[in-house]
């Protein structure tokens, strides 16, 4: 319990720092008044605007107001779209989250078994072939994988759509593509594209960890105890392998989420990545600032989840009350 509280404390601190950076960006990059009323407004108009926005108040007060509004989900109005930023993000968030989750499920679901298998069958030609393939997966740029997949499965075979999200269903404001056939089909290529690099990374890490654990003293002692091979490999070695792998999976999930921009561009996926590309092009500062807070929030939640999972797997962490510190 103390463990959880100290973790929560750290999470809140991280969010606070992110909020401050985001506030600084919002307040000091460019002139908010200029951005809103345009060059043509009169000096008096500008002054009225400054007053209305509270831009002459002390910085600390302004930051307090920023945080207070952010907590209520109010991040201001997008310069580019003229809509509330929160509403824009909320529309796009489910698309990116679903894409990221499915990509990580593919990467983890295949990566861990493949890594473990190649470690246990070191020397077999299939394991060698898988390793070589995984090297290619690491080296290939993501957009190239996406384009090749589109070429094969959309253009040549015509099996899967090459862009968009398909039909989506809205459940309490959350739009999901997982409940319609076209939605699922549309998700396949982008999630594979996004997952390939993670898959190879997780596979290679799981393999390396498994090899390391299989050489460790307690595995040698387990063999000396005459335990069966399956028990040693899956009961002891695999569990110990999962400890570091869980950490990486968590951190990579954050990365996948934050850097889905390339895949969203290739597949015209209506998620946060596409939105942010536009925001950057138009220097849409409120949108960027809010996006920053959102990403920080996601990382913080993921880290917290990883820590809890970590403590659940490893009694040493539970006892120490402190896990590895999040990156």
């Amino acid at each position, binding site marked *: 319990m103390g463990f959880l509280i100290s973790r929560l404390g750290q999470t809140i601190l991280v969010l606070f720092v992110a909020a401050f950076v985001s506030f600084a960006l919002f307040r000091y990059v460019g002139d908010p008044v200029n951005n809103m009323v345009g060059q043509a407004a009169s000096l008096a108009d500008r002054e009225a605007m400054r007053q209305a926005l509270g831009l002459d108040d002390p910085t600390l007060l302004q930051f307090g107001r920023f945080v207070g509004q952010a907590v209520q989900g109010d991040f201001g109005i997008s310069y580019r779209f003229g809509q509330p930023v929160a509403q824009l993000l909320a529309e796009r968030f489910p698309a990116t989250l679903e894409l990221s989750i499915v990509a990580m499920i593919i990467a983890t679901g295949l990566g861990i078994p493949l890594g473990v298998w190649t470690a246990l069958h070191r020397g077999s030609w299939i394991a060698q072939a898988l390793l070589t393939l995984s090297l290619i997966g690491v080296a290939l740029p993501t957009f190239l994988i996406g384009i090749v997949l589109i070429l094969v499965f959309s253009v040549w075979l015509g099996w899967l759509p090459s862009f968009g999200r398909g039909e989506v269903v809205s459940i309490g404001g959350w739009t999901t593509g997982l409940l319609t056939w076209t939605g699922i089909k549309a998700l396949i290529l982008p999630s594979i594209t996004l997952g390939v690099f993670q898959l190879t990374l997780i596979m290679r890490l799981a393999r390396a960890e498994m090899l390391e654990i299989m050489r460790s003293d307690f595995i040698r002692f387990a063999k*000396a105890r005459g335990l069966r091979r399956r028990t040693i490999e899956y009961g*002891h070695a695999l569990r110990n392998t999962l400890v570091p792998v869980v950490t990486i999976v968590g951190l990579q999930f954050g990365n996948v989420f934050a850097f889905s921009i390339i895949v969203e561009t290739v597949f015209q996926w209506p998620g946060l990545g596409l939105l942010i590309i536009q925001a950057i092009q138009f220097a849409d500062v409120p949108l960027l600032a809010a996006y920053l807070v959102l990403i920080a929030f996601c990382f913080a939640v993921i880290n917290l989840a990883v820590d809890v999972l970590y403590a659940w797997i490893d009694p040493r962490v539970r006892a120490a009350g402190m896990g590895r510190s999040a990156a």
Partner: protein
Amino acid sequence: MSALLEVENLRVEIAARARRLVAIDDVSFSIPEGEVLGVVGESGAGKSVTGTAILGLLERPAYQAGGRIVFRGNRIDNLDGEAMRALRGREIAAVFQDPLTSLDPLMTIGAQLVETMLTHLPIDRQEAWTRAHRLLAEVGIPAPRERLQSYPHELSGGMRQRVVLALAFCCEPKLIIADEPTTALDVSIQAQVLDLLKRMCRERGTAVMLVTHDMGVIAEAADRVAVMYAGRLVEIGPTSEILRAAAHPYTQGLMASIPTMRRRGGDLLQIPGSMPRPDAPVPGCAFHPRCSHVMDRCRSERPSSFVSGASLAACWLAEHGAPAARPRP
């Protein structure tokens, strides 16, 4: 009387890049039921490799290249993997050097004990937990019932090695390969753990191959002593005789180092020079470059084992049955 364990002309090689290194060369000894055989020698002498070969746990690049290992009258070095596994932990158990790393950190010690017993013994889970509880009490763990639910990191090094002993004894094996069981422990607990090992073996009639480089441990616990040097057995005999009047000059050097060993931390011996490694073998007697009694033939001819009193010594000085040199002052 046939011995519990017989090792005959054991040879272990290590496949190195272009050649094969000889790690264990023509080693023979036996351990009768209930005996504690101490195995001593400098680090790298081949003690652990010998123990590993007996357990059938040699792993590439090391492999058994010759000789036989016979346990209770049956050859075990050519058993298939599954038959050897069933023997391991059941008939031949092991205790390794480092108790801090011998246990699975993610599993309670009770679960590890139960898992071992259920693998080998025809008992149910509840019976296994009962026995696990009894074993922890026997190895001197306070509050054994609560400790069953503890994870290894919650126990001190000495306590963990007691758990390792409980694991080694949980299926009532006939032989225990104890590879430096106290070396990694605090000096203050070494004696306690050694006493526990001795007591449990005596009560059950378990034989032990007690590997150590600590002559003090030998003097305290071993019935007989085998001395290894550069992958060979150079002398084997009753502890009292080896301590009193060793035949091999190397053993004499080891014995001379006992007083300093008592202070621990000191080097094993004061013999100048160093032991040849498997990748740079020495012709003739492997000890001759360091031997103060060296003769011409030692440089070219490898001595076989000669009877010297109740001992066997692989030294040309012992060829005619006479002890090589005077008893130790």
